[in-house]
């Protein structure tokens, strides 16, 4: 009897799994109907942050609809929800930082980056991320972070590897920096309350912290590489084979959107109000990333070697040529 129940349970799980696969393949087959002239609905998994402004701007400007792509943003709370969504075919494309994509690839997750997302401003005084400390902190520059506690949003990812690089370049000992994990939005309060000595923040948290008197001592992205490619749009390797035409059109539309956003920063800033709740002075003062239409492969190699150095990929090496197409 017990065995029968177990068998039943297994059957239920299998059916649920099969149903999942069924619905996901239905999702992709729906999109592969992207013949000429037809409109295809494309779901893009994104995090509602500053970096994805070109996607929204491109949608508004019709760069996607003119190519027969009807965009639907699926706003998730981070890569943890986006990568499985793309791999299972729930989303056709997703937005992710480049280190996460390299980690995914070395773990055997079948993803391929198809269009650029965002890059550092390259300006070490005003970048889209920064290590902030309290006004009266003894930390004056990156090397003083050795022996201090620094908050990052995700451990073993782009934040801590680039902060370590900034400390290293400034002549400090990166192995002495202690990292703790914390969401960006809680960092200004944690810094103020003294729970951490420093916090690596992205926008708009960085601008908020600065307006409350925090001091920026390092800009890890710009210091790692002035052209560092931070995030890209990716898809499942399966979709690149099943519907190369759709992938190509999406990449073209994205390149056009990035170029437009770069040329019209004010419009890009304004579009933020449609999908975030950023307003007032923060909206006016926050730093926008660069949006080059192409990846910077040299900077990605740099990022990969930093990741290897910090043991992010176990003992594997990311294959950048295959990953960033």
């Amino acid at each position, binding site marked *: *009897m*017990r065995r029968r129940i177990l068998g039943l349970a297994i059957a239920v799980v299998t059916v649920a799994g099969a149903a999942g696969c069924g619905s996901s393949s239905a999702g992709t087959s729906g999109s592969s109907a992207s013949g000429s002239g037809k409109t295809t609905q494309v779901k893009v998994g994104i995090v509602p942050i500053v970096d994805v402004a070109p996607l929204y701007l491109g949608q508004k400007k019709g760069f996607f609809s003119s190519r027969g792509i009807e965009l639907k943003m699926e706003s998730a709370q981070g890569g943890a929800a986006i990568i499985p969504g793309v791999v*299972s075919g729930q989303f056709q494309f997703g937005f992710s930082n480049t280190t996460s994509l390299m980690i995914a690839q070395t773990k055997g997750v079948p993803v391929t980056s198809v269009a650029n997302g965002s890059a550092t401003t390259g300006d070490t005084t005003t970048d889209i991320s920064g290590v902030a400390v309290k006004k009266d902190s003894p930390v004056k520059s990156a090397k003083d972070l050795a022996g201090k506690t620094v908050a990052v949003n995700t451990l073993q990812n782009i934040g801590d590897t680039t902060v370590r690089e900034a400390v290293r370049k400034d002549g400090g000992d990166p192995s002495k920096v202690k990292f703790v994990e914390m969401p960006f*939005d809680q960092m200004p*309060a944690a810094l103020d309350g003294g729970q951490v000595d420093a916090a690596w923040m992205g926008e*708009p948290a960085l601008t*908020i912290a600065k307006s409350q008197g925090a001091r920026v001592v390092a800009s890890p992205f710009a210091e790692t590489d002035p052209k560092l490619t931070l995030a890209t749009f990716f898809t499942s390797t399966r979709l690149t084979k099943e519907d190369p035409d759709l992938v190509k059109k999406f990449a073209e539309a994205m390149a056009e959107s990035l170029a437009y956003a770069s040329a019209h920063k004010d419009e890009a800033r304004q579009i933020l109000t449609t999908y975030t*709740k950023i307003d007032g002075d923060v909206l006016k003062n926050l730093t926008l990333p660069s949006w080059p239409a192409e990846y910077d492969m040299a900077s990605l190699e740099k990022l990969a070697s930093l990741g290897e150095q910090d043991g992010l990929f176990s003992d594997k090496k990311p294959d950048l040529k295959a990953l960033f197409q």
Partner: protein
Amino acid sequence: MTPSAIASVKTKPAGTGAGPGGAPGRRGPGTVTALRGLAGLAGLVAVLEALPHTGVVSADYLPPASEIGRTLWHLLAENAFWTALADTLTGWGLGLAIAVVAGVVAGVVIGSVPVLRAVTASTIEFLRPIPSVALIPVAVLLYGTDLESTLLLVVYASFWQVLVQVLAGTQDVDPVADDTARSYQLGRWGRVRYVLWPTALPYVMTGVRLASAVALVLAITAELVIGSPGLGHEIAVAQNSGAVSRVYALVLVTGLLGVAINLVARAVERRALHWHQSLRREG
């Protein structure tokens, strides 16, 4: 049913009694209770208003109650807010309905077949404590960030609440009543309808009330973590944007929603169990 099982169940109704029994016993002092509740709420608002001014916490991270109230007022004028509220209620209501129906059917079937009960007991005890939140990756893999993801978590969490209560209810059947029904030649269905169901109903209602609270928590959690549409997602977007008072205003809404849901659940419970001894007024 063994006498020991009945004995152990007989000690249980305290648990259920607290459900239907608690407040409605005294009707007269109801307004006093309500007033006291309001006074407590007013006290909380006063503390929230005062705290940021004392410097214990910065107004940057905990805005005074008046500012949260103003944000809430603006929120009420937004279409997006009402859509989000509707999304959350849809996820909650659908999930709860599925869980209740499935829980009651499964509970009555398992509870009235002793063999089935013996066989499933360990499985239920194994599956029940698995936190719904742990199923998030599975939910995303199967359903992406749509309503179905929310439903999976909500149904999983609230199903057990109902099932366990229904199982306890089916155990509580008075053997004399059951034997009487048998000697009057009532069939299986008749006994379920006239003996088992009235006995189990107070337990079912307790289960529904517990599940309705759990379902709300899970609906908001799913939206917050996965990003499926609803109030939880609005909170997440506001957090990402550093819109602090908006976050608190939305949290306040979810709290009020919880209170409202509990009130409705209690009202439904009272209505469904008006004949039950725990709800009948003396004299």
